[in-house]
């Protein structure tokens, strides 16, 4: 629906959740009523001179603060009129003053308005009198984001210099009730603008142009000093962005607004371990699919046979049929996809490419039968419980009998595809699932959780396997549990049933179930020197986890056939090279 105010720059829901405020380009602040079925325009507030860049509700819902250019307005929600206009200082840039953009405002329950602006200031205003209480100049560049904790005793701001500052409300003296806001710790984990910050009860979260998501735990809120209290820097999404057609050696890369299909190169040369072989045939960029409009691609997949590509955005679902004629390739979009498929969270093709499984954001699972150039909706598994929880991970057994699906919090559900009905549910576990895989032949489901635990569950027996019980009894190696990134993909070797292949962003691991499990005293990561040792020593020290850490940021790894493995790396330097240059800061001594 159109707000009729030009581009919308800011939006915030009321504390009760029943009203929505938007700030528009033309300086108007509009209030909408949110009902269960629609959003209805309610009223306009006094129109301001320039665009409204930030909005904040008073926790009681009686007042709002709106940040514009050069000033902040405080509105009374009942009357809709501006009660105060608080003018912000501009910053001198040489001779002229530059306009001061209020990037963020926050209304605290005691009536204090905190504003962050493009002059590098964090300012505290008294909304009752409309006066400036305190000003902190913290940066030479813009302060772009602000987030307040629920207790309103601390907040965090992010600057264009990549610094995140923490402010805390501390008492002036131990025996008085007077409190003041104090800038405490600066964190410099970003190289570029920090565009968004969040304040969780135990951590500060920041993200920006440099593509990192940084979670900085607050030490004073952390009860136990364990590995959870460490700083986390997340660079890549914990999802699979690449799918692979094993048969045709195709890789489908998912970007924010387009898909790329590449054919892998090949070599005829052979060499020793560690050699880099010359390519006899270079990798081909086969096609690039762009989505229309600004919508991001949520998920995508290529069928194992390589003749289908499916992808979904928030409003559309696309299915393409690919046909290969020697070197040329032709693409044909399958029309009239049903509307219920849109904004799917996960798409998966069955091993024989005859079925398409789509996990929708409504919690249901759609099964679609694919045949030459057309499709047929076979079945929909509706969510069992009342709680609607979207499924975001899918795995299908190679024989096509079983489908495992997992949401963000609840356990893994297993459906029988032959009889098209739920088979069983894996016992619930506290941590979300990050990867699923069903082993061929045995139909053992391997589940990796975000706390780095790995379970193996026998689907036919509806219970954990012996090996899984054994490893749970002994516990994983402490180094394994301390890894930073979750396992994003699990696959199996068709000829070696005892092997499980899994990887995260920094390592590739083969778990050999036939070997003894490592305990905390053994070396988890096989040192390189061991490869030079004699077989006896190697055999004595061998354990179930064989880990290779030579890939740096590893995005994808899959067995193409028994002897070929494809790995996709995404070097961070390539990402950084594409970023705009950071704000130059003078560093002492340079």
């Amino acid at each position, binding site marked *: 629906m159109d707000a009729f105010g030009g581009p919308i720059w800011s939006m915030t829901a009321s504390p009760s959740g029943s009203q929505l405020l938007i700030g528009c380009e033309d300086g108007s602040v509009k209030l909408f009523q949110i009902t269960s079925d629609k959003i209805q325009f309610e009223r306009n507030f006094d129109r301001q001179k320039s665009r409204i860049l930030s909005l904040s509700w008073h926790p009681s819902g009686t007042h709002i603060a709106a940040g514009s250019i050069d000033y902040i307005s405080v509105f009374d929600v009942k009357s809709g009129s501006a009660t105060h206009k608080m003018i912000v200082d501009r910053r001198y840039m040489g001779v002229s003053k530059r306009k001061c953009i209020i990037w963020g405002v926050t209304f605290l329950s005691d009536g204090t308005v905190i504003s962050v602006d493009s002059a590098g200031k964090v300012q505290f205003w008294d909304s009752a009198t409309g006066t400036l209480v305190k000003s902190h100049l913290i940066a030479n560049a813009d302060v772009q984001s602000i987030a307040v904790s629920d207790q309103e005793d601390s907040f965090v701001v992010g600057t264009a210099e990549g610094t995140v500052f923490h402010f805390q409300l*501390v008492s002036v003296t*131990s025996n008085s009730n007077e409190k003041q806001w104090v800038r405490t710790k600066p964190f410099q984990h970003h190289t570029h603008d920090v565009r968004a910050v969040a304040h969780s009860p135990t951590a500060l979260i920041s993200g920006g142009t440099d593509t990192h998501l940084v979670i900085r735990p607050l030490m004073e809120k952390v009860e136990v000093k364990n590995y959870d209290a460490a700083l986390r820097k997340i660079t890549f999404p914990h999802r699979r962005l690449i799918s692979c057609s094993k048969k045709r050696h195709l890789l489908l890369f998912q970007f924010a607004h387009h898909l790329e299909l590449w054919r892998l190169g090949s070599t005829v040369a052979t060499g020793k371990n560690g050699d880099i072989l010359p390519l006899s045939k270079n990798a081909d960029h086969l096609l690039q699919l762009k989505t229309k409009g600004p919508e991001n691609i949520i998920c995508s997949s290529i069928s194992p046979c390589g003749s289908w590509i499916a992808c979904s955005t928030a409003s559309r679902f696309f299915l393409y049929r690919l046909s290969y004629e020697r070197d040329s390739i032709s693409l044909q979009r399958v029309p009239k996809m049903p509307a219920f498929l849109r904004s799917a969270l996960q798409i998966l093709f069955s091993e024989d490419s005859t079925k398409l499984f789509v996990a929708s954001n409504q919690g249901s699972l759609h099964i679609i039968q694919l045949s030459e150039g057309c499709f047929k909706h076979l079945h929909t598994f509706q969510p069992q419980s009342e709680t609607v929880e979207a499924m975001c991970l899918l795995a299908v057994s190679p024989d096509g009998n079983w489908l495992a699906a997992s949401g963000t919090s609840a356990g893994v559900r297993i459906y029988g595809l032959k009889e098209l009905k739920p088979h069983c549910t894996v016992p619930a576990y506290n941590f979300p699932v990050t990867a699923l895989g069903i082993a061929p032949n045995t139909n053992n489901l391997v589940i990796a959780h975000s706390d780095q635990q790995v379970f193996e569950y026998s689907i036919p027996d509806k219970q954990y396997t012996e090996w899984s019980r054994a490893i749970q009894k002994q516990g994983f190696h402490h180094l394994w549990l301390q890894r930073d990134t979750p396992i994003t993909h699990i696959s199996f070797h068709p000829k070696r049933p005892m092997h499980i292949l899994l990887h995260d962003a920094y390592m590739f691991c083969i778990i050999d179930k036939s070997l003894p499990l490592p305990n905390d005293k053994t070396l988890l990561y096989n040192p390189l020197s061991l490869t030079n040792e004699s077989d006896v020593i190697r055999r004595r020290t061998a354990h179930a986890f064989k880990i290779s850490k030579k890939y740096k940021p590893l995005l994808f790894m899959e067995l193409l056939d028994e002897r070929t493995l494809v790995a996709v790396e995404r070097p961070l330097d390539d990402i950084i090279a594409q970023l705009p240059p950071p704000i130059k800061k003078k560093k*002492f001594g340079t």
Partner: protein
Amino acid sequence: MVEEESLRVVRCGGSELNFRRAVFSADSKYIFCVSGDFVKVYSTATEECVHILHGHSDLVTGLQLNPSNHLQLYSCSFDGTIKLWDYIDGILIKTFTVGHKLHALFTLAHTKDSVFVTINKEKPDIFQLVSVKLPKSSSQEIEAKETAFVLDYINQSPKCIAFGNEGEYVAAVRDFYLSVYFFKKKTTSRFTLSSSRNRKHAKNNFTCVACHPKEDCIASGHKDGKIRLWRNFDDDKKYTYTCLHWHHDMVMDLAFSVTGTSLLSGGRESVLVEWRDATEKNKEFLPRLGATIEHISVSPAGDLFCTSHSDNKIIVIHRNLEASAVIQGLVKDKNIFTGLIIDPRTRALVLNGKPGHLQFYSLQSDKQLYNLDIVQQEYISDNDLIQIELRKAAFGCQGHWLATVEQRQEKETELELQMKLWAYNKKTQGFVLNTKVSMPHEDHITALCFCNAEKFENPTLVTASKDGHFKVWILTDDSDIYKKAVGWTCDFVGSYHKYQATNCCFSEDGSLLAVSFEEIVTIWDSETWELKCTFCQRAGKIRYLCFGRWTCSKYLLGATENDILCCWNLLSCALFVFKPSEPRPLYIQKKISREEVHWGVFVPRDVPESFTSEAYQWLNRSQFYFLTKSQSLLTFSAKSPEEKLTPTSKQLLAEESLPTTPFYFILGRHRQQQDEKLNDALGNELVQLPLTENIPAISELLHTPAHVLPSASFLCSMFINSLLLSKETKSAEEIPDDVDMEEEKGSDDTDEENDFTEKAQDTNDIDLGEDIIHQLSKSEEKELRKLRKVDYSWVTTL
């Protein structure tokens, strides 16, 4: 006159003024700083030393104002005592004996009966902060043994301890942690910084700490130049801190302003940084302070700051960051190459000062007169740089000429030498560079010597060098068509068998020059520069060489490297050899100093003393000063400590209501002299007033501290009465005079009445003015009366 007194070693100055933080008086008029065993009181307006508080027998380590009486000062010392002073009069009020070596002193406003001191009890490196209860007693010497333990394992430096929020807590830092002790809760919180060896945290060490005067906020300085502001430290978990980072090197000291709105920090950058509102972006600088800032202190009135610097200097700085006064002591350079020299003109001690400078230091007033920049190059402080060193200096021709030698040696073979000759300019009262000689010798110059004989009209300078030559430089005419000028040129080069010349010396009349070449002494005729004779004495390399003076001018003395003193009789060419231990020295003083003695010098006295005892006769005409390894200046004195005190106790009569400016001292002396003249002139017709000391009322008035006295108006009549002459004290022959005066007075009786009322007003106007009244001697009164008698009728016409 002083035969019965034994010679004592007296510390006469040059002590570190920057050893501890300086302390301001409550009205910011005075600044107190430790100076060796003394406490010095300087005027902040005039930089003059107003008093020296003597009394401690070891290094003074702490100063604090008495919180219950801001006209009193506590000081503590390594001698284990805490002394309470009245700093305005320079009087020691009380001595509290604690018994341990005291390293630092702290006072708190609300614990008036106890102070805090840092002591080390058992092991040499473990220090404790204890509170000492000062018993109330009227006696002067009090034992204060009642101590209560506060904090353990602290740093000995007082910079590492700070009391905050009116004494609710004390913060102490050491190594990598901050401990905060809360007096009310009696708990200690300890906060540790990461001390891991990686690059980022390696220099996290705490260096100093300061507490916010109003808020619960502790500022700590660190080795890496960071300042951390700690808050919420009463909670072990919720504590938080902010970083301020500008210094690139260690933060040496921190101080909050009185209101706490700004924080001052300083370090090796020699820049005073003022952080306003404790925000990183809002800071002000006072740069180019000359040397590392060691301490910062803030006056209780808040209008002044002061910084103590590593070159023994205290700079008083206004609130608006403008330096207003500099108190400069003896600069302590790392090496004193020049030795101690006496400037014949000013009698000042001359030695190496700041790098590349020569300092002129007044021994009498214990302050630096001025600095002469010899090297005239920007000094870059960097440990790796090899600096130009000022090696030798010598005065000639009654201080008219100054010769200096500087050298820089980067490698063994690359020696840069420069000799400069400076002429004294009477107009500017300073030395002006006259001649610059680069590479005067091929190798190090070992000695520099002027011919000081009066009959020598042509100034002559001799340099001896390791290259085996000695060179004679004379002043010649260097005029050209543009200007008349003089310059120095080399006149003669002498050598002796390629031996290294080690020293040279002119005889007193200037006729002979002695040059030592390693073990051989050669005597040269200074008229013709021919070798007269040689003395070869295989007693070792000769280090020092000196001709006798006065009646002993026929003797030549030499000191060799292996502790032998040789004396040659030039007339008979006979040789006497002394070993310092064997013959009969005039005087031996043992245990003169705790440290090695590095240099000594005889300073001529202005007024010869008259020691009759044979042992002290050598001190008659001059005084012997010597410099120890830690560069404190010591001397021998035969005076008793009480006598030493007299000049200062005279000094202390300087009226405190008047600013103690140099003008005051000049004028005051002038007035005194006038008074004396008047006294002499009017001597016999004067009324012989009884000595004020003998009148109990006055002595009581003077011995009671000013601040406990009742108001001046109350005291006035009693005081005036006590000054009035009672009949009994008059002697018979004085009576007629008095009568005469009374008759004189009788003529203008009404005037006299006015006089008295005016006087009463005077005393009211000048609060604390009892001293003045006391000083209004009879002669002054006389003067006043005379003035009154002058006809002021012209005033009415105006």
